[in-house]
C-alpha cells in the first residue's frame, strides 16, 4: 500500500457552544420526558400503559467532488404508546406532545388493541428495574456546529487535493435522549451522543474508504481516516484483474462486521423456534472454529446502546459462541416463559413477531496485527470493505456481495497493488471455521450491519465467484 500525503494535524478545540445549529440546544430534558409520560398515564384508561419517548437532534454534513453538497439538521420527538386491555395489546405513535394529541394516540392504541383476539400468555408489564450506569453522552459532540463540521471537511478536501483525489463522505454529529416508562412503575432512560465520519477517496481508476464513529467527538479523528482512505486509493491505482476462486483473505474489521453481523438474528430464540435460524439443530455443536468466541455485551467499553431492552428488562451479558460452539440464545420475557428459560434482556418493543435479538455483539479478537497477517500470507487478498451483502442460503448462511474501495493482492508477504473488485458467495459458518489469525477487537463501522466490536481476520478458502469491470 502506497503512502498518501497526510494532512496537517490541527485538532479543533471542543467547548460547549450555544446557538440555533447546536444539537444540545434542541433536546428535551429527562424531566420534560417524564412529564410527557405522566400526562399519558393520567389520561389512560387501559389496564396497563407503556410509553417510549425518543428525542433526536441530529445533523449531517455531506460532501462529494471535494465540496459540501448536502448539509442537513433534524429535530424531532416520537411518543409511542402501548396499551393493554384484558390480554390485548397494540402500539400507536405520534410526534405531537399536546394534550389532545396524547389523548388521540392513546385512543388509537386502544382501538388497535381491542380489535384483535386475546393474546394467550401476554405477560404483565415489568415493574421498576435497576440498570447499570453507562456514560455515552458527551458535550463536545452535542455542541458541534455546522461550521465545525464544514471546517473539518475543508481540511479533508485539502488532503484529497494534495493527493489528486476526489473526496466524498459524511460528517455527522447528534444528541439523543430516550425514556421508557410504564404504569407499573418502570422508568428507564438513556442519553447518548454520536459522531461519525466516513470518507471515500477516489482516483481515476481506484478508491479507498475509511469510517469510524464514537460517542465522544474528541476521540474521532477524521483526518486520520481521510489519510487512510487516501492511501488505499493511491495504493489501488491501475487495478489488475485476477481469476475468481478460493483465496486466503485478510478482512479488515469493517468487512468482518458487515459479514458476521448478518448472524445477529440467528441467535434469537424465536428465530430458532420458527426454524429460520441457521442455528436450528446446531446448538451445542462445533459449527465454527475453536478460536471463535462471541458475546452480546452492552456493557463492553466499545459498545453503545441502552442497558435495557424494549420492555425495560436489564440487558445481560450473554456468551453466544464458546470456542466455536453455539452455547446460548437470547430471550425476551415471553419467549423465555414459553421455552422455560430466563429472559436475557434482549426483547424487542411489543407487540412484534420477532421476539428478541442480540444487538451488541462482541467478537473476541487476538493479537496479530494487520501487518503480521499480510507478512504471513504467501498469496491472498486484503479486503477493506464489502458491499451489498445479501443472504443467498439462510440455513448454510451463504452471503453474496462485492468487495469495494480498497481490494489488494498480497504476494509473498507483501501488498503488491490493487485488484478489480470481486463477487463472493461465502457461508458465514464456513468462514468462521476457517479463521487462521485474529487481530485485536475494535469498534467496527460498516454499512450493512449494526456496529459491533470485531477484529480483523485472516481466513482461508474464501469463495470469490465472479469479477466486475473496475
Amino acid at each position: 500500500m502506497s503512502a498518501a500525503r497526510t494532512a496537517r494535524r490541527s485538532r479543533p478545540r471542543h467547548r460547549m457552544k450555544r446557538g440555533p445549529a447546536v444539537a444540545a440546544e434542541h433536546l428535551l430534558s429527562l424531566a420534560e420526558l417524564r412529564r410527557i409520560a405522566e400526562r399519558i398515564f393520567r389520561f389512560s384508561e387501559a389496564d396497563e400503559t407503556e410509553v417510549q419517548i425518543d428525542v433526536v437532534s441530529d445533523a449531517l454534513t455531506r460532501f462529494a467532488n471535494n465540496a459540501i453538497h448536502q448539509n442537513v439538521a433534524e429535530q424531532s420527538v416520537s411518543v409511542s404508546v402501548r396499551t393493554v386491555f384484558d390480554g390485548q395489546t397494540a402500539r400507536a405513535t405520534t410526534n405531537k406532545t399536546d394534550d389532545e394529541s396524547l389523548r388521540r394516540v392513546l385512543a388509537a392504541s386502544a382501538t388497535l388493541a381491542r380489535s384483535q383476539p386475546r393474546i394467550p400468555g401476554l405477560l404483565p408489564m415489568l415493574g421498576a428495574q435497576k440498570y447499570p450506569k453507562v456514560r455515552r453522552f458527551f458535550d463536545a459532540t452535542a455542541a458541534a456546529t455546522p461550521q465545525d463540521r464544514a471546517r473539518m471537511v475543508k481540511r479533508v478536501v485539502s488532503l484529497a487535493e494534495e493527493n489528486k483525489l476526489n473526496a466524498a463522505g459524511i460528517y455527522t454529529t447528534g444528541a439523543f435522549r430516550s425514556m421508557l416508562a410504564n404504569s407499573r412503575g418502570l422508568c428507564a432512560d438513556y442519553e447518548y451522543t454520536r459522531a461519525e465520519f466516513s470518507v471515500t477517496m477516489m482516483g481515476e481508476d481506484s478508491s479507498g474508504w475509511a469510517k469510524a464513529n464514537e460517542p465522544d467527538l474528541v476521540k474521532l479523528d477524521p483526518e486520520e481516516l481521510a489519510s487512510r482512505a487516501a492511501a488505499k486509493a493511491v495504493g489501488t491505482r491501475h487495478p489488475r484483474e485476477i481469476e475468481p476462486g478460493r483465496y486466503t483473505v485478510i478482512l479488515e474489521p469493517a468487512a468482518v462486521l458487515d459479514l458476521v453481523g448478518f448472524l445477529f438474528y440467528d441467535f434469537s430464540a424465536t428465530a430458532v423456534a420458527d426454524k429460520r435460524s441457521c442455528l436450528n439443530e446446531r446448538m451445542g455443536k462445533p459449527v465454527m472454529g475453536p478460536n471463535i468466541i462471541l458475546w452480546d455485551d452492552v456493557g463492553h467499553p466499545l459498545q453503545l446502546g441502552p442497558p435495557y431492552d424494549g420492555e425495560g428488562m436489564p440487558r445481560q451479558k450473554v456468551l453466544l459462541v464458546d470456542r466455536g460452539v453455539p452455547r446460548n440464545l437470547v430471550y425476551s420475557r415471553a419467549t423465555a416463559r414459553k421455552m422455560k428459560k430466563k429472559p436475557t434482556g434482549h426483547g424487542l418493543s411489543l407487540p412484534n413477531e420477532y421476539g428478541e435479538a442480540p444487538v451488541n455483539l462482541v467478537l473476541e479478537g487476538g493479537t496479530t496485527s494487520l501487518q503480521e497477517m499480510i507478512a504471513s500470507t504467501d498469496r491472498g487478498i486484503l479486503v477493506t470493505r464489502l458491499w451489498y451483502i445479501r443472504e443467498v442460503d439462510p440455513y448454510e448462511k451463504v452471503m453474496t456481495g462485492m468487495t469495494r474501495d480498497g481490494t489488494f493482492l498480497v504476494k509473498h508477504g507483501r501488498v503488491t497493488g490493487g485488484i478489480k473488485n470481486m463477487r463472493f458467495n461465502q457461508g458465514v459458518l464456513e468462514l468462521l471455521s476457517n479463521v487462521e489469525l485474529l487481530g485485536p477487537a475494535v469498534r467496527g463501522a460498516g454499512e450493512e450491519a449494526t456496529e459491533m466490536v470485531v477484529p480483523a481476520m485472516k481466513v482461508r478458502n474464501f469463495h470469490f465467484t465472479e469479477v466486475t469491470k473496475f
Partner: protein
Amino acid sequence: MMRDWANWALETARVRGATYADARVMDIRQRDLSTKNGRVGTLAESESLGIGVRVIAAGAWGFAATDQLTREGVQACAARAVSIAKASALTKRGKLVLAPEQTHVDTWQNPFVKDPFRIPLERQLDLLLAADKEMSRVTGVTLTETSMQFRRIEQLFASSIGSVIQQVKMQSGCGIVATSFGEHEIQKRSYPNSFGGQYMLAGYEMVEALDLVGNARRVGEQAVALHKATPCPEGARTIILASDQLGLQIHESIGHPIELDRVLGQEANLAGTSFLTIDQLGKLRYATDMVNVVADARLEHGPGLGTFGYDDEGVPAQCIPIIQNGRFTGYLSNRETAPVIGLDRSGGTMRTESWSRLPIIRMTNVSLLPGTWRYDDLIADTDDAILMETNRSWSIDDKRYQFQFSTEIGWEIRGGRRTRMIKNPSYSGITTEFWNSCDAICSREHWTLWGTPNCGKGQPMQVMGTGHGAAPARFRNIKVGSAFAR
C-alpha cells in the same frame, strides 16, 4: 395551518439572506398489521407531522427540519437552514444553477376506491389470519407470515418562486409468506411478491383484488415441494424472468445507474457511482432493439409507488425515455443536475421520505414497456430454459455493473413446455451484456406495475417506494447457478 407554517419558513429564510427557499410540510399516517403462525404479530399505527426547509444562501445548500410547529419553532428551523447553508459555503465549488421551473399552484390526489384506514381493523386482521391459516394447513410448512401496510401522506410544498402545491397520496401493500424447514434447508414462497408483497398507490381495493386467501395454499405447497425439486444447474442457459423478478432487475440494473446524482459522484460514499457516464448518453447500446424503458411518474402510467402530481422540488410529473429501441437516452435528474447535462428543465424526480429528510433524486416508475409476445407463445417458442420467479436475494456492485440474483422458485422449460420445478435458482452477469441478450418481451396483458417499498438511498438513509412495470421476458446465454456452486 400547513400554508402558514410554509409561509413563516419562506419569509424567515428570505430575511436571513436565502436566495432560494422551499418548504415541505408533510403529515404521514401509517398502519402496520402482521401475523405469524396464526397469531397477530405487529399491530401499530403512527402519525408524523413536521416541516423541512431547504435553502440556498451564500451560494450553497442548507436544510433543516423540525416538528415544533409553533411560529418560533418554524422560524428557528428556517434560520438554522440558512446558517447551515452559510457553513456549506466554506467548501463550495462553482456556481449553483437551478434549471428554470414555472410557478405552480395546484392540488393533486391519487384516485382510490376504499380508504384502508376506514376499513375495520377486525376485517383486515381476519383476512390476514385466514390466509395464515390456509398456509399452515399444508404439511411441512413450518412458518407462516402475513402483513398489510397502509400509508397516507398529505403534503404541502411551497417555494420562494411562488409555487404552492398540495398533494395527498394513499398507499396500500400486503403479502403472505410460507417457509418450510426440512432436510437441512430453508425454502420459502411468497405471494404476490417477496419482501412484503405488492405495494401500489391505491386503496384497500388492491388488497381485496389480490385474493391472499385463495393463493395461500399454493404458496404453502410450493414452499414444501421445493425441498424435493431439482437443484439449479450451473452454466450458460436461456432464462425467462417472471415479471416480479424482472421488476427488481430493472430497479437495480437500470433504475439506479440512471440516477444523475450517482453519475455525478454525489452518492459515491455510500450508494456508489454509476457506469453510465455522461459521455454515453445517446450513444450506449444498453439493450437489444426491442427494449424500451421509461421513468414515468404520471398517473396514466399506473398507480405505482413512483406516481405523483409533482415531485418534492415543485416540478410536474413527467415521462422520461430512458432506453429507446435499446439505446440509452435519459437520466433521472433534478433542477440542480439537469443543466449539467444540458437539459433546460428538471426531469422531476426529487423525492423525500418524510418532512425530516432532504429531497434527493429517486426513481419514479422505471418500467420496461410491454413487448408483443403472448406468454404461452413465449414458453412454446423456448426449447431449453429456466423460468425464474419471485426474488430471494439481490446484489450489485457500486457502479451497477456486475449483479447476482436468486429467486424463490424456478421451472425447467423444455421442448416448449414448463416441466420440472427447480430449487435455488440464481443468475448473474454484467448489466449491459444482460440487457443486450433480451430477445423476447411479453405483451401488455402480462405486464404488472410492481411496487418496491424499500429502496434505500442517501445519508441520512431514506427509504422510498418505487414502481417498476414489467412483463415476462427471455434472455439468452446467461450464467446460472454460481450462487450455490461450491
